[in-house]
């Protein structure tokens, strides 16, 4: 993707002290940005509150969202991937409320090829 001239940015509601861990653990070569209060995710219309029944389960598996995110909202973004062209227009949008489904990276590469060939 970077070879096709694209920048990559990853965004999560967790505090900077946590994004640095993600960035280093996965040896990421692009910026991982802290979206306090999910303000940017909200503009992409991705934000939802984690169901009350799930909150104690999340805590048990180490996903203590108030500790990670620095607020008591228990809000998360749906995992979403967007390709945005130079003019700021969304050219590919993949959002699934089922967190186990993710976009195939090949779809991003194909979208970027179309953009660069145009």
């Amino acid at each position: 993707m970077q070879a096709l001239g694209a920048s990559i940015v990853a965004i999560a509601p967790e505090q900077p002290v946590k994004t640095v861990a993600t960035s280093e653990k996965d040896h990421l070569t692009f910026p991982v940005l802290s979206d306090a209060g999910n303000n940017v995710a909200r503009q992409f219309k991705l934000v939802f509150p984690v169901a009350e029944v799930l909150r104690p389960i999340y805590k048990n598996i180490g996903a203590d969202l108030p500790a990670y995110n620095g607020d008591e909202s228990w809000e998360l973004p749906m995992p979403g991937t967007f390709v945005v062209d130079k003019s700021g227009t969304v050219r590919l949008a993949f959002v699934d409320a089922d967190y186990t489904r993710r976009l195939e990276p090949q779809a991003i590469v194909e979208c970027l090829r179309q953009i660069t060939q145009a």
Partner: protein
Amino acid sequence: MSTPSHSLNTELQEQISAFQQQMLPNIPKEILATFEKTTTELVRSGIAERSLHVGEKAPDFTLATAQGEQVKFSEVLQKGPAVVTFYRGGW
């Protein structure tokens, strides 16, 4: 990256399924049922269909990296297209 045992050309969704098959036996049934129920509810709510769509303008924003560097999206776009990916957290 974090799954060096998989070759890079394995489809991502296959890798996720393999990981699930490995994890599922370790998770208590009632917890699995809660995950499935709440995910189904979220899918049925239609929230994903209301998210930002192809053809719409992406909002501009400025956010900080862990190192404290401010990244302004419109400046990133001056260099070319961008892939923006939202994840829930490193947990």
